[in-house]
């Protein structure tokens, strides 16, 4: 546990020292969402209908932005190799990286999302479900993204390849996240969708660190 | 004959479906055969050296 905490604090400290990352993700998210009223017109009903989808898709893309750098810096300067020799299992290290990624990406997105939902005339009844769905879904994005990031370490055009690999795997999260948010906005039950998101989170917590660690090991061979 | 090709009015869906299958699978077969022959020829050239 202390190994996990130490790695987590290390990654967070690095992230904040660089400063840019959190601001980048939030800025991209906000700007991308704001583009939609300009693109589809300011009609409140139309915007309200597409609000859940727009928020989720742009959150997804924003989370994708910083995935490429998840392991890259450590891989390039050799610290990944050093970390893999530590007594802390590689799977735990991956979890720590995902936690740091979520704290600097998913969590800020979840906090900003309600404000942007206002801009899109999202139905107020949907806010609790929207926030709950994002809280459950964004960690899954970090976890699945970690698998993609580990697989594409050192690949040619890693960024594009990462998107190709990860976006299809994101689709279930997107489907249930939007379903939960929209259901609540329409006054319907969002619990089944939220429970499915929770199941996805549980499954990816169990499987993703293992898969990402396997990918890291063969990247270091 | 004309009745067969008309496929009960669904001709413009049925025939493209069969067409896609034939074109894609035959195309894949052709691609695989061409690649095989090319590799064989290149290997023959290299082995004769």
């Amino acid at each position, binding site marked *: 546990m202390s190994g996990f905490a130490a790695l987590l604090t290390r990654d967070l400290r690095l992230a904040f020292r660089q400063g840019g990352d959190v601001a980048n993700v939030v800025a991209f998210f906000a700007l991308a969402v704001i583009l939609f009223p300009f693109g589809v017109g300011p009609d409140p009903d139309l915007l309200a209908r597409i609000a859940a989808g727009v928020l989720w898709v742009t959150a997804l893309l924003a989370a994708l932005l910083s995935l490429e750098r998840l392991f890259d810096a450590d891989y390039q300067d050799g610290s990944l190799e050093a970390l893999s020799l530590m007594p802390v299992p590689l799977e735990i290290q991956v979890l720590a990286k995902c936690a740091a990624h979520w704290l600097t990406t998913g969590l800020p997105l979840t906090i900003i999302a309600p404000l942007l939902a206002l801009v899109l005339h999202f139905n107020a009844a949907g806010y609790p479900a929207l926030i709950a769905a994002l809280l459950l879904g964004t960690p899954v994005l970090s976890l699945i993204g970690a*698998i993609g990031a580990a*697989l*594409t370490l*050192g*690949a*040619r*055009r*890693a960024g594009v*390849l990462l998107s*190709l*690999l990860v*976006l*299809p*795997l994101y*689709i279930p999260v997107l*489907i249930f996240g939007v379903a939960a948010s929209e259901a609540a906005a329409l006054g319907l039950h969002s619990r089944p969708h939220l429970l499915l998101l929770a199941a996805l989170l549980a499954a990816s917590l169990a*499987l993703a660190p293992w*898969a990402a660690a*396997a*990918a890291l090991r*063969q*990247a270091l*061979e | 004959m004309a009745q*067969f090709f008309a*496929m*009960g*009015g*669904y001709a413009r*869906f*049925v025939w*493209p*479906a*069969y067409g*896609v*299958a034939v074109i*894609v*699978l035959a195309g*894949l*077969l052709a691609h*695989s*055969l061409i*690649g*095989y022959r090319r*590799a*064989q020829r*290149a*290997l023959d050239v*290299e*082995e004769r050296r």
Partner: protein
Amino acid sequence: MQRFANPARFMRLSAVLLPWCATAAAVLIAIGFYGALFIAPPDYQQGEAVKIMYVHVPSAWLASLVYAVMAVASAVALIWRHPLAHIAAESAAPIGACFTFVCLASGSLWGEPMWGTWWVWDARLTSVLVLFFLYLGFIALANAFDDRTRGSRAAAILAIVGVVNLPIIKFSVDWWNTLHQKASVFRMGGPTIAISMLWPLLVIAAGFLFLFAVLLMLRMRTALLRAKLRALRFGT
């Protein structure tokens, strides 16, 4: 298992098997298509549009089967370091992608007259589309590294991770209310489809299976020849 590890042995074995599998594939597909187009009856609800089923369903079966083969080969490659396993997986991937494409295209052509739409985002169609992207991702990943071995191993991991999609594809029509119809062949209690329609379906599926075998052996032989070529040129 170790007996088949020898590439030379595989070349000899496949040289014997190829003509037989090719003949079987040609005969079965010919008989199957003839039966589907000329002998099988029209459906009382769908009329002649049901003929698309004879292309759509076998390619759907092969799409999932080839992925399973690819995933097993990948697991064998990673766990036992079997030399042919990576080649098998990478040879299977384009074949699976083609079958998936045929499944999606024929399904779309079937959907428009029957459901009134070319596409719908239900669980079955979405998960098969994800399968298609998994195939593409596998091929892209395997070719993305200067060190080919690294690419093969990364792609193998992806193939195994993507296996979760297979049960989703199979059971999606049971777990969710989908527009796509439920299973009528591979189900508990046996097929519900009439034998006059079932036999061309099974014959074409068998033909496609032999076609897969032919394509796989061809592409594996090509890969092995190319490896030999590289060894000769660059002296491994």
